[in-house]
């Protein structure tokens, strides 16, 4: 089969993304409308009469049929206008532009931490399966999976921020303004999310490595007289790279989801806080905007992972 150019792969993928974006935003919109209670009650303020709430619905176009409302949002979105918050009037694109870097920084820090700790753990565990090192790694990994991120987050705040006063307990700073301060603020939330990622990386890596190490060709490498170290780091890891990229893409997506809770604990104005606020107030342009942005991010992450996989394993392209 002929090799397809990367550009065509990317183009094809982006085209496939369109129905996903449509479906995701439509489903979220439908869910928001199905849930009882609407923003008109909030907009009308306290003491509002039924008549006033009806008037508000009309004023903000909330009385139009469901599909018409979705359609008008979609038309605008297609033109690059994510419209504005019904409640406060802030442009949704501005809200996202401010929130996304905060979330991204946490996820990047969490991912780096997860890989830096998880990869060595997975490798040392795979050298002697069922040895004592492996057992310790398994125990740590089980803990990492089992401990809820928000709980770990609160323990970290209590010990590291409030008792030792090493890192800030809440808030976020702009990376563009002061990278060092931004990282200091994002470190604890990053660690809280990284615990799960570390466990996942270690477990998956151990599993795939064991599979590779028990294969025939590794036996040949042994027979050739290669040292265990070289087999492991040079041949073993290269062979599990595809699995690793897949794990990373799944992890990034899960970490993005985890920020919803973690951002609440650390009072970080990120995407998670934004969508929670939008959903609670039924401020649907905000929710739609965040979902729209997140779908694009997830699709991009998956695309990058696929391209990387294809780069290390040519079989995948076909």
């Amino acid at each position, binding site marked *: 089969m002929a090799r397809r150019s990367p550009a065509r792969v990317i183009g094809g993928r982006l085209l496939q993304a369109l129905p996903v974006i449509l479906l995701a935003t439509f489903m979220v919109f439908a869910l928001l409308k199905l*849930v*009882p*209670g*609407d*923003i008109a*009650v*909030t*907009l*009308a*303020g*306290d*003491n*509002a*009469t*039924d008549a*006033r*709430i009806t*008037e508000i619905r009309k*004023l903000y176009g909330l009385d139009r049929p469901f599909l018409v409302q979705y359609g008008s949002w979609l038309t605008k979105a297609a033109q690059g206008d994510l419209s504005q*918050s019904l*409640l*406060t*009037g*802030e442009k949704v694109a501005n*809200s996202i532009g*401010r*929130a996304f870097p905060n979330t991204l920084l946490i996820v990047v820090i969490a991912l780096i931490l997860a890989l830096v700790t998880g990869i060595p753990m997975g490798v040392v565990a795979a050298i002697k399966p069922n040895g004592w090192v492996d057992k310790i790694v398994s125990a740590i990994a089980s803990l990492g999976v089992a401990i809820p991120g928000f709980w770990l987050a609160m323990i970290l*705040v209590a010990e590291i*921020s*409030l008792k030792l*006063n090493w890192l*800030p*307990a*809440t*808030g976020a700073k702009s990376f563009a303004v002061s990278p060092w301060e931004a990282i200091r603020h994002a470190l604890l939330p990053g660690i809280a999310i990284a615990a799960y990622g570390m466990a996942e990386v270690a477990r998956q890596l151990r599993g795939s490595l064991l599979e590779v190490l028990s294969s025939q060709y590794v036996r040949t490498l042994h027979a050739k007289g290669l040292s265990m170290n070289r087999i492991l780091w040079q041949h073993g890891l290269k062979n599990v790279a595809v699995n690793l990229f897949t794990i990373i893409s799944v992890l990034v997506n899960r970490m993005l989801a985890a920020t919803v809770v973690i951002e*609440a*604990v*650390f*009072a970080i*104005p990120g995407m998670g*806080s*934004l969508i929670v*606020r939008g959903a*609670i*107030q*039924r401020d649907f342009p905000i929710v739609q905007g965040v979902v729209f942005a997140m779908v694009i991010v997830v699709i991009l992450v998956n695309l990058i992972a696929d391209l990387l996989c294809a780069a290390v394993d040519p079989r995948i392209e076909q």
Partner: protein
Amino acid sequence: MTGTTRRELMALMTGAAAGVALGGKAIAQGAPKRGGILRISAPANPSSLDPATGGAGSDHAFLFTMYDTLTEWEFETLKPKPGLAESWKFSDATTFVLNIRPGVTFHDGTPLDAEAVKFNFERNKSDTKSNIKADLASVDTVEVTGPMQVTLKLKNPDAALPGILSDRAGMMVSPAAIKASSTGNVARTPVGAGAYTFVSWADGEKIVVKRNEKYWKPNRPYPDGIEMSIIPELATGARSVTAGQNDLMYQLPPRQKAILERASSIKLANGPTLYVFQIFLNWAKPPFDDIRVRKAFNFAIDREAFVKAALAGLAEPAYMNLPKAHWAYDKSVAGLYPHNPDMSKKLLAEAGHKDGLAIDLVGYPDQDSVQRQEILIEMFRKGGMNVTFKNAPIAEASAAFFGAEKRASGLLAAWTGRPDPSLTYSLMYTKDAYFNAGRAPVPAELEAAIKESRASEDIELRRKAFATVQRLVMENAFVAPLAFQFELVAMNKKVQGYKPNLLGKPKYDDVWLES
């Protein structure tokens, strides 16, 4: 949405100062000094920074920094005092004259004169997006009767007006800013005449204001500016103060008190407010259409125990919609429903529920609300009622209960009371009022008494009318009041001069920072 919103402030408390007992106070030490940035943890993003188009009671904490009001109130009593209006008087029952303070300008330099005040009144009354039309329903026409004098012609006597003008309806917005705005409001670009001018608002993140150098009150404000960080998770907000990232946090839940008292860097202030936890009842449908069931429900509640268990003792048991400190409090009504589970069972048996009664309520799903529900469920069980709560977020629960759906028989929420009770009562206990969930009729004498309470300026006449109102509401058991919550504020030790107020919405008038 009574849980978090509270809009009008109806303060007409002339001569009501006596007998008001305030709780803890933060007293300033040393001479106040200028400078520093006051950093605050605020629990909610404002709905709008335009006083006319916003809707949430939590907005005031932001609005008060930028907008001054025609009348203001005494912190302890909520008695109206001069603000942007130097003086006012009812020249007859339906003519209300306001004399505007000379020499005040808005942040954009527009003079604050009679024309500007008239502009605001007319906008508040007629702008399609104005949420405060109802506040000014009694106002018929607004006339400029002098360069600094505005006269309101009223449709009917309204003794609550001086109080109303200390809230949203009295917050003066620069007419020039409104006219220049493409949206017809200043929701994101507030221009008032308050102590601070607007700098920036990042939704859900932070609001920044800086000192108004031309502010009319001498030597105020002390800080150079205020930064209000929006932190909806209250425990996180409290931690931000403990860790020194913020200086002050208001609206703390009582359970935080014990935790914060252990932090040596923090001091606490608390004081009573009119915020009352209560169970709204739908008396248009079973089981609460039966007065015996409503009474049984009220007898089953041990309010003293509720205050201790659910609110860490930082509250006053509520037997009606007014706390003891209030001038219209009627002592005899307070004795109507002592805790008496046997009486509950007896009344239920009379109503035909000898073997117990299942009651479905709605509530909110946050931790504090659920804790309150658990405590109440046990009390009702002892009174022969099997109460279950279905929880939903505030907007959904209140829309489902008060709106068209009429879900459940009752709603555990709160009423953010008004110092002048006339609106409280007309909003909840008149036929077709929104907070009368069943829109069911009430006794004619109750409606009449509510009307009477607003008709006269005379405090004794009003007190008598409110006593009648209160007695009729509780004799009919139209509501199950639980407790008046105290305001709890945590501060860094360098914050001086902060005073809680009876309204429970923070004002930072005399706050200064020790360096």
